[in-house]
């Protein structure tokens, strides 16, 4: 068994977990798995390590494999470490029509990495994703919980400049909102 002692939700998160668990009928606490994985990812470094997942399993009193199965199914859970700033650019049809490929190329050149890679300083990870439901404001990217829409190369440059100063993991549960 993996040692899960070193990993534990903060008191604030624990209180939130208790509230979340009450949303479901008795005996259906596994329903909290997806929300808890989001919380765990936000709290433990922006990704889900095996000890993190085992900890979530112990909180919900389910088998670790049930957590691995779920975490590996959904795209929002990172099973490997990512940069502090996870940039996710949509590239599906409507975004592609409005120039998403150019935006991706621009970010790649700007950061000196290819999609799927992380910068050497561990600050940025660039990921391409499928439709994020922002087709009317394409091209777009998501960073943390926030959407950045109607992108141009100039807008991207400004965003990256601002994000450069951020030292905290941007995850879906934590916003690093940068106003343009």
């Amino acid at each position, binding site marked *: 068994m993996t040692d899960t002692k070193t990993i534990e939700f903060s008191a604030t998160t624990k209180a939130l977990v208790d509230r979340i668990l009450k949303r479901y009928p008795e005996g259906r606490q596994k329903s909290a798995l997806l929300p808890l994985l989001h919380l765990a990812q936000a709290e433990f470094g922006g990704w889900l390590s095996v000890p993190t997942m085992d900890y979530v399993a112990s909180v919900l009193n389910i088998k670790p*494999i049930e957590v*691995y199965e779920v975490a590996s199914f959904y795209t929002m859970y990172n099973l490997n470490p990512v940069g502090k700033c996870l940039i996710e650019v949509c590239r599906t049809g409507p975004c592609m029509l409005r120039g998403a490929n150019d935006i991706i190329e621009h970010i790649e050149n700007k950061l000196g990495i290819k999609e799927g890679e992380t910068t050497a300083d561990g600050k940025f990870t660039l990921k391409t994703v499928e439709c994020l439901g922002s087709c009317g404001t394409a091209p777009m990217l998501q960073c943390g919980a926030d959407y950045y829409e109607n992108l141009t190369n100039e807008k991207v440059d400004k965003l990256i400049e601002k994000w450069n100063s951020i030292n905290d993991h941007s995850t879906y549960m934590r916003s690093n909102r940068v106003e343009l």
Partner: protein
Amino acid sequence: MAKVTIDGIEIEVPDGTSILNAARMIGGDVVPPAMCYYSTLKETGGKCRVCLVKVTQGSAKDPRPMPKLVASCRTNVMDGMVVQNITSPEVLEARKGVVEFLLINHPLDCPICDQAGECDLQNLAYEHGAAKTRYEEDRRTFEKIDIGDKIKLHMNRCILCYRCTFVADQLTNNRVHGVLNRGDHSEISTYIEKAVDNDFSGNMIDVCPVGALTDKTFRFKQRVWFTNPMDAHRDCPKCSGKVVLWMKGEEVLRVTARKDQYAEVKEYICNECRYDHKDITHWKVEGPRHIDRGSVISQNHYERIDLQKLKKEVERQLEFQKGKPLPEPNSLNA
């Protein structure tokens, strides 16, 4: 009770019977193949799609046909239902398509696969496959892994029937392996190096329809068609103790549970029987095992053939074929 007609043959079956099981009650060629359904594991079925059939009449009450082909393993019969399996060109075409899908990423390494000769996919491909692949891309590959000291997982060969996960859920109380990732990246795995260790875990090998999970104590020991299967039993405190010993001379090469004509285990066996008693003196041998499902093993008849039974079966098949075009002989055009 419900009256159902499958490929022109009428049969009365209890309510709640699936089309597949109704077809099995008829027997013979009208039985759809099944790669994921397993009668002794709850909730299996519906995934592989090789058992698709056409329902041309839903029931006596509502005679409308079903709009799509349905998975016969998970669709229950209704009184007055009319089903086409091998009499429907649409079904055969769809099945051929499914077999092609199952094969595009399969390594086709039958010559070195321990399952060869008793492999459901091999048989299915022989019946419905085409000799030439239309798939030009690289096949998906995974590393071989050991899950425990007795089972080898050869994910390249897996068709994701999920049976082994149901075994772990239903026969053991601590499932440590499962289906990870999604889409065509899905794989059976423990995620972390973890041994599947449980008294009944060995049954995963028996329910695997392909060579994805093989018995490490038997791997590369012998081609299965050179072994003699013998029914045997012992007093076992954990399971029924009813097994098949796969012998070469006096040597017990492998122990498995007993499978029926649809390659299904009705009585699961424990790991002790499977792995720890490879000595003929530990068993009471009942006699040669008759294997009637289609495979090369069944060609190896050395037991006394029940001529009466055989004659009856031939007559029954002839009766069924009367007035029907014979199925095309295998159209391998290689």
